[in-house]
């Protein structure tokens, strides 16, 4: 169980304008600015939940994760994870969590990955049998095999990320924090990582908290979304709810031969070019099947596709709505 209540965090940042003159001036008096990274952040996450933590760059996602991992100390507010305050009982707390920072590496650069794994085993005092079992399982699921004998520096980003995720799970953590785990990965690696996380959650009941800019990650993985902007929690709800909230409109793409199909009430044409028609449809006025029937009645249609609002569009509209 994770509970955050009224967490506040500010950073002091040195600032100056560009230019030589300003740089000289900054030698004598430096200007600092207090940046509020988090303002009254509160939420609660139950055991075994998968939560997507989203927000634009600089919204405070990583700061929240770092507070929950015991790395940063907030100015005020309370955070309790399985009965412990992370920054006060850091060592006991981090034993129970796994962390992946997509932009950093926890593997020792010059040595084969398996050496890093063994060091992690010793650091967490993982029982040899459990280590063997976890390693075999992770190696099979993440397709590590030969990768483990390679030094981390020689791995590609996707290969390394799979090893990073494995490294964070060797000690069977109860909670897994993933800070942009799919950043820079190709499609195949992304899918592999997503499937793995899903399986982990389903089979081991691991609580997963994920930050990402990739909406497909969110769509594939999480049922619950926390939206943060400018350091405040703006929304907390399921993906479906959020989608409904932003819009129920469907998009129809119709390809036709000859004369353009007739448009009826409830449809709005967004694009009509070279025999391809893009229509925005309000299903509360006209159902999808009726719309297709009426379109097909007056013209020769070669292809139709229907899509709802994508997570990508939804988030973009949310960011717009909250002006973040």
């Amino acid at each position, binding site marked *: 169980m994770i509970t955050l209540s009224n967490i506040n965090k500010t*950073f002091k940042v040195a600032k100056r304008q560009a230019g030589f003159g300003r740089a000289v001036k900054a030698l004598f008096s430096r200007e600092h600015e207090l940046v509020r990274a988090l303002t009254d952040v509160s939420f609660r996450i139950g055991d075994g939940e998968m939560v997507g933590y989203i927000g634009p760059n600089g919204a405070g996602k*990583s700061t929240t994760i*770092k507070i929950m*991992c*015991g*790395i*940063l*100390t907030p100015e005020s507010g309370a955070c309790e994870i399985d009965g412990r305050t992370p920054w006060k009982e*850091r*060592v*006991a707390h*981090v*034993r129970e*969590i796994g*962390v992946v*920072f997509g*932009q*950093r*590496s*926890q593997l*020792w650069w*010059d*040595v084969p990955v398996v*050496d890093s794994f*063994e*060091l992690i085993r*010793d*650091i*967490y*005092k993982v029982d040899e049998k459990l280590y063997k079992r976890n390693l075999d399982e992770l190696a099979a699921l993440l397709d590590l095999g030969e990768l483990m004998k390679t030094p981390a520096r020689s791995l590609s980003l996707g290969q390394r990320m799979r090893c990073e995720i494995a490294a964070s799970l060797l000690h069977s953590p109860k909670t897994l924090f993933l800070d942009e785990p799919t950043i820079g990965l190709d499609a195949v690696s992304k899918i592999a990582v997503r499937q793995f996380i899903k399986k982990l959650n389903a089979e081991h009941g691991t609580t997963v908290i994920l930050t990402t800019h990739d909406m497909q990650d969110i769509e594939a993985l999480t049922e619950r979304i926390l939206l943060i902007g400018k350091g405040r929690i703006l929304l907390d709800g399921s993906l479906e709810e959020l989608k409904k909230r932003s819009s129920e409109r469907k998009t129809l793409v119709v390809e036709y031969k000859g004369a353009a199909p007739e448009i009826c009430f409830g449809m709005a044409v967004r694009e009509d070019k070279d025999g391809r028609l893009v229509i925005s449809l309000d299903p509360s006025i006209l159902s999808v099947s009726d719309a297709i029937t009426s379109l097909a009645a007056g013209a020769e249609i070669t292809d139709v596709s229907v899509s709802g609002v994508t997570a990508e569009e939804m988030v973009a509209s949310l960011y717009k709505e909250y002006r973040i």
Partner: protein
Amino acid sequence: MKKYAALFKIRFINGLQYRAAAAAGLSTQFAWGFMEILAFSAFYRANPAAFPMEFSHLVSYIWIQQAFLALFAPWGSGGDAVEAIVSGNIAYDLTRPLDIYNRWFIETAANRVARAALRCTPVLFVAFILPPPLKMTLPPSLFQLSMFVLAVPLGLCVVTAYSVIDSISTFYTMSRYNAIFVIMADFFAGGYIPLPFFPEPVRKVVELTPFGAMQNMPLRIYSGDIAGPDAVKGVVLQIFWFAALLLAGKMLMRKSLKRVVSQGG
């Protein structure tokens, strides 16, 4: 304890793989050792009475210093800790169930031991087969030797505790190299000129500071320059400074972690 032993091991192994660096270091150490001895011997010939150390003591001092340079030099051993702070990878380090101070201490010490292990044997071997007066001699008694064996690890502990404080200061300075910290320690520990060559009042003060408890102790105990009860006092001073620097470092670490910022997002 096992986890710290594992950390020591991986650092040690990592340190052993830099053979070219060790070879380059060795040639520097030979050149430096010869030059220093030749320079001092010129002074000695000019006026042996004004020379504050016996010449054979000085020769042993210089050769052991060169052999164990990596063990006692105040620079260049806390690189991983400093890099972790500057790059922001400290974030990962803090997600490990380890005391960060202990970890850095172990890693810094392991770096030193690994580098010294590669370099000390050739230097000592050559120093023992050289013709006198360049030749290094054995310690005058079994007592001095055993005090030396005690003073080496203690000196390592003092200088490592000092280095870790240097690394922690990176939280505040964000600089990879804190010159004042390092040069001051090297100078007052007798890294350039042995402490007996310092003016009397300066020497007396410096010998009581942590700098006097670093390489100064083992290097002078070996040859008998610090002998008998003075050697025992010296070792006690080393234990005192090790404990003091350890406590200071741990306190500073606790304070710093409250204001830690993970650089670069």
